[in-house]
């Protein structure tokens, strides 16, 4: 189902491309052996080609965030393996994966350090995955780099390098977090509903920014969203999770004709359940 049958050329290119992320047979169980045992992920198999931008949807408790947290190293899976760019990272602590994985969180507060200034936050991100040394944290040259990069956001942040981040709005903070994530080019980006806590207008801007900073730069990305419309419009491929399993995996060719209504139909067919009237539908 994954490869489009009509587009032979694309199929060929896909096969040539390296698997940037390769997850096989992944299981994550919380509270194993207790009454409140929960199988959060079961038998997840997923390959992401380099440069692929994949949107992830699914209801509450479907395992979307657990999947991202397993890839990021916050949770260590109970079974299965995760390879990033050919290297096994299944049991690596989160801070040791950070050199190649960047994360954006739902809450803008999580993605930035509130009491520190804009430039201090950027400087922290500029050394993602590097050893922190006893040398000056921000040089003049870097300051200029920050100003250039911030100017491209068109939020006027280039004039506010020394403003503490807590004085910025949620949208500004999330935009800054996106910039921080791409300051050092990651092999994989994990976006966890990063527009969900913003107002619609700001969410749209941040989404646009996501397009320029990640999609157009061909950064391999997994983006969780509750918004089906968004999931269809962004990226090149869509996967749907349900009760810890991937129940739908459609890529470009198949996705084109897809609408929210059809997506819900597909969900019924795949899960054998009626979609409950939750956030997934309303979004």
């Amino acid at each position, binding site marked *: 189902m994954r490869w489009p049958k009509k587009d032979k050329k694309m199929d060929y290119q896909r096969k040539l491309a390296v698997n940037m992320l390769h997850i096989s047979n992944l299981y994550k169980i919380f509270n194993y052996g207790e009454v409140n045992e929960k199988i959060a992920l079961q038998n997840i198999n997923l390959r992401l080609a380099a440069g692929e931008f994949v949107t992830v949807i699914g209801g509450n408790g479907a395992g979307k965030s657990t999947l991202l947290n397993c890839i990021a190293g916050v949770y260590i899976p109970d079974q299965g393996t995760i390879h990033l760019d050919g290297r096994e990272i299944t049991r690596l602590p989160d801070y*040791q994966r950070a050199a190649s994985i960047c994360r954006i969180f739902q809450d803008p507060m999580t993605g930035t*350090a509130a009491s520190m200034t804009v430039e*201090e936050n950027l400087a*922290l991100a500029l050394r993602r*995955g590097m050893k*922190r040394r*006893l040398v000056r944290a921000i040089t003049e040259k870097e300051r200029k780099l920050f100003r250039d990069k911030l100017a491209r956001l068109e939020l006027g942040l280039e004039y506010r390098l020394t403003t503490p981040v807590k004085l910025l709005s949620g949208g500004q903070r999330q935009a800054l977090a996106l910039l921080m994530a791409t300051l050092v080019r990651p092999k994989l980006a994990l976006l966890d509903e990063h527009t969900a806590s913003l107002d619609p207008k700001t969410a749209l801007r941040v989404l646009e920014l996501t397009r320029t900073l990640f999609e157009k730069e061909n950064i391999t990305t997994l983006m969780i969203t509750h918004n089906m419309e968004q999931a269809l419009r962004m990226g090149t491929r869509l996967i749907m999770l349900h009760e810890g399993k991937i129940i739908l995996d459609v890529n470009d060719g198949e996705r084109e004709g897809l609408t929210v209504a059809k997506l819900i139909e597909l969900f019924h067919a795949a899960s054998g359940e009626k979609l409950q009237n939750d956030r997934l539908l309303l979004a």
Partner: protein
Amino acid sequence: MNLTLLWSTFNLGLLYGLLVLGVFITFRILNYADLTVDGSLPLGAAITAILIYTGTNPFLATLAALPLGALAGLMTGILHARFSITPLLSGILTMIGLYSINLRIMGRPNVPLLKHGTIFDALTGLGISLRASQTVIALAVIILVIVGLYLFLSTELGQALRGTGDNEVMLRSLGVNTNRMKILGLAISNSLVALSGALIAQYQGFADINMGIGMIVIGLASVIIGEVVLGVKSIPGRLCAVVVGSILYRLAIALVLRIRFIEYTDLKLFTALLVTIALISPKISKRFKQAHKLAVAEEGQKDGLSEKVGG
């Protein structure tokens, strides 16, 4: 209050300033209430006192407090970061353990230094008074430590330390081993606290096993007083402010002691009250402000100006 008393108060404030800087690092930078200080301050005092007592050069004896204090912080850090014991409990465990260690180091509960030369006698040979010598040396040490801390906090490592206290999740996602950062911060903090103890023992002429009781509260009180009174935001400003807070705290203590019915032993109660007031006052003032805003808004509504106020 006469000038001499004021001067000694100032000197003592500076010496306790090192303790306060240590508490500032854990409490404000790392966001970690570290009770180790109640044990690491007498630890510094103990090692320095016994070394001077047995004839070691006072300078070397003072420096010996630094690595021992760092070790104490390291212990607390490992208990917390490696074994996931809560910050408060890890601090208490180290503090209690240090009580026995301090007694072992001194060999008795109290080591007098009155007949021995201390670091403060270094300048009296130049013809200045002991009190002036204390001021010069204390100021020199404080300035050195503030400049050192400021420079350290503006390095990559220092920024990672600040970030760890601010947003641990983010720092881990940026590849910082936040556990190691906490251990580092605790070690630096407690080495300063031990240095403070080393100098205070020499200042007062003895080291005592019980001199650490309530140090964390004194540290917190001084940090809060300094921040409230000076209200500065920048890191170097805040470093200076907490030392000023330490001096103001000593001044407040000296003033309280002049009230006739207050005994020296009532001081801990006074300090506890002071810190309680300092900790709850921001919340109370916030509530007052909200009540005021609400009142203004209601007033506006009555006059039909609600849109102006609301907008």
